[in-house]
């Protein structure tokens, strides 16, 4: 059965490219949300196998979205991977403490991103 992924990123173009990558190489079903709020709203109706979450977003950033997910029993067990340009060591340490599965850096490797995600999720 095909895996489903929710991708939350305010960068519309980037989200489209990532979605195409995942669908083309793995055949995963990708749903895109262009803001944290939109993502949380979508989660009320869909139950993705994993969430790809951008960190730097206006209004509600990735950290807030993640905390929201953790506070909701419906969503708290969904594995989350950060997709971020913040790749400094201090950032990675901070993210790791949150309990996320892993981080994928922007700019990503288009041919490898699907494999990286599969590896992080043991798919």
């Amino acid at each position: 059965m095909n895996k489903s992924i929710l991708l939350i990123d305010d960068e519309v173009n980037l989200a489209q490219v990532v979605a195409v990558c995942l669908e083309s190489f793995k055949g995963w079903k990708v749903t895109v949300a262009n803001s944290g709020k939109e993502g949380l709203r979508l989660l009320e109706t869909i139950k993705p196998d994993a969430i790809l979450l951008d960190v730097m977003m206006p209004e509600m950033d990735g950290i807030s979205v993640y905390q929201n997910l953790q506070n909701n029993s419906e969503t708290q067990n969904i594995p989350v991977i950060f997709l971020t340009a913040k790749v400094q060591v201090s950032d990675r340490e901070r993210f790791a403490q949150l309990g996320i599965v892993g981080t994928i850096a922007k700019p990503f490797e288009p041919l490898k991103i699907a494999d990286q995600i599969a590896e992080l999720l043991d798919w």
Partner: protein
Amino acid sequence: MTSPTLDVAITILIVDDSEEDRVTYMRYLQSDLSRSYNFLEAATLEEGLIFWRSHQPDIVLVDYSLPDGEGLELLEAMGEGVLVPKLEAIVLTGHRGNEQLILQTMRLGAADYLSKSEVTALSLCNRVGRVVDHLLLSRKLQRLQNQEIVIAKIALHIRQYFDLEEISNAIVQEIRAFLKADRTVIYRFNSDMSGVIIAESVFPPWETCIHRQLSDEYFPENMGGEYREGRVFIAPDIYTANLSECHLHMLEQFPTRASLIVPILHPNNLDHPLWGLLCTYQCFEPHFWDELDIRLLQQLSVQLAIALQQAELYRSLQISNTDLENRVNERTAELFKRQQESTALVENSPNLILRLDRQLRHLYINSAIEKILGIPPAAFIGKTFREMGLPERSILVAEDAIRTLVTTGISQQYEIEFPLSDNRGTAHYQVSVIPEYDADGEISTILMVFADITSNKLSEFALQEANRRWQSLLDNVRLIVIGLDNEWKVEYANPFFLESMGYELAEVIGKDWLSCFVPQSEQENIRRDFGGFLNNPDKFLKYYQNAIVTKSGQERVVSWNNTILRKQNNEVIGTMSIGEDITDKLKVERLKSEFISIASHELRTPLSSIRGALGLLASGVLANQPEVAQNMLNIASSDTERLVRLVNDILDLERLESNNVTLNRQWSDTAEICQQVIETMEAIAAKSQIEIISNVPSQQIFADRDRLVQTLVNLLSNAVKFSMPHSQVHLEVEAITDEIIFRVRDHGRGIPESNLESIFERFNQVDASDSRQMGGTGLGLAICRSIVQQHGGKIWAESVLNQGSTVSFTIPHRI
């Protein structure tokens, strides 16, 4: 011992041609046991005369009729040269009762007349005895008289001479001559009762024993024994005088046979009355010392004591005189030396010293003047300052000081500078003006001392200059300078601190630094970091950074460079801190770091899309999905555009903010500028169905036209982006006194009040995703602000939420 006078043998010369008679007479006379006689016999007149002349007999018994002449001739010879002779002679005659003969005998001075027929033992002894008595008496009288003369001579001598040695010598001389002794000495006791012979008269061939030290163990034992009581020692023969062996031995050394010794007693010294001994000796034969000898010696010893006393008085007088004289000499020498010294001091003093009379004429001036003015001191004597042509100012100051001195009697002091001779520069003097009084207490002369304080002055000037420089540095340096005492109280604050923090000096001095000028949040840290005390050198931090509070309550971050202030004894008295306000620098750094962080994010994001899209296309995975592939190409293309814009804007802003862009200012017409802007925007506006409305006024403006167009396009495009379709955007221009105001007004959703200022910061759009969706870079307004500021204008935003926003900026008229 009884008087020896009667025991003296009388020599009687019997002149008689009858041997029988002579023997008879001698037998008769020897029968008188109370006297002892020696006899000389002569049978003729001639023989009698010879004996008389050679032996000087005491008494003559002469027969009237002698074979070779009358006995009266002998009487005549004896009485020769004497007016009224009184001869110790008795005439014997066979003629009885011859009146004429008796008369003649008496006239010749014979003592008695005796008829041979009347001569019996008794009559002869009586007659001779009477003559002897007379003889002895007259001799004694004579001797007493002579003795008085000797004593008188000595006394006179004592009165004439005060020198004890001289008197002593005279006394021994007189005594020895008078007593016909072999030796007369004065022996003086030392304090240990040994003694020395201090005066001597000795008859040759006896050797002198003057200055001989003699000691008799007998004397020290009993302090002179009976001599102390004035007893006289009389020894006609030392070998019968019952003397000790050693005493004899001592006397034999002189030598001595007979001695007569009287003590010389010191009349004023009761403890040691025995001063010495007056001794007369016969060296070879025993000698009978008669009463007169003894009395003479005693009397002379008294005279000697008087002389002694007198000599001592004289000597002590002489000593005190000499002492006085010595002291006067010493004083005089010392005075002279002092005077020499003080003269040398004054003469060689580096200070100029002078004395003036009341008419201000020089009485004295030391040689320092020659070094100062090159004029010898002598030239000044009797002249005034004015006559010497000294600088007018120095004269006036000196006269003024002297006038005050004379009026008040108080020493004056002033400082003056004086040009040195030969262009050696200027010397500085501290002048003391000192009054000198005469016996009446009037100021008679004035002493002036010019102390050279040039080097002091120069160092004082240097110090003042150094201080002035420091002060000037502290006053003008664009750094904060704060001095604190050990109690953290402010002792010093420089003008820059006051100016930049908005305080008055009085609000700062003496205040507690931490509680008044440091934010509460930092006070504890500072106390901890400095170990609680500012004067704790172990925990003293040279470099420190903390915030301080301005008067208006703002916090400014200051980077301090601290120094401990110490006294010369190393005691810590406080700190001096120089601080730089690094608030703005920190802000710039923070902004820069944020900018880099944001810029890198903003650059990475489109780059990620481009790389992803192109990577997918290149992989061929989309070969069977031409629509998706086309979409990927569009995304890559649009994000490449965005990347180019972003890079351009960053570079543009960087150039503007680093002032690397020089404005190309020129006169333009605002109407033309607005027309150009509207033309540029028309297509975009039309696409968004927005109408641009402009009053398009015609105003001459001195500005960089391209930059002005760039700014207005930027603002208009923002307005268009955030406006609802079918709404209007206004571009208005208004000229007022000093400047021209441009306004871009929309009817969009508005800007929250909290963002009205931050929107002009880089990447600080209200909603970044909005901006990106609208194709913005997040740098537009920052670039606008920079351009406006370069023109000397300002830019600001006003907004009412959901009703619209207005962004305005001013461009000043040409200055």
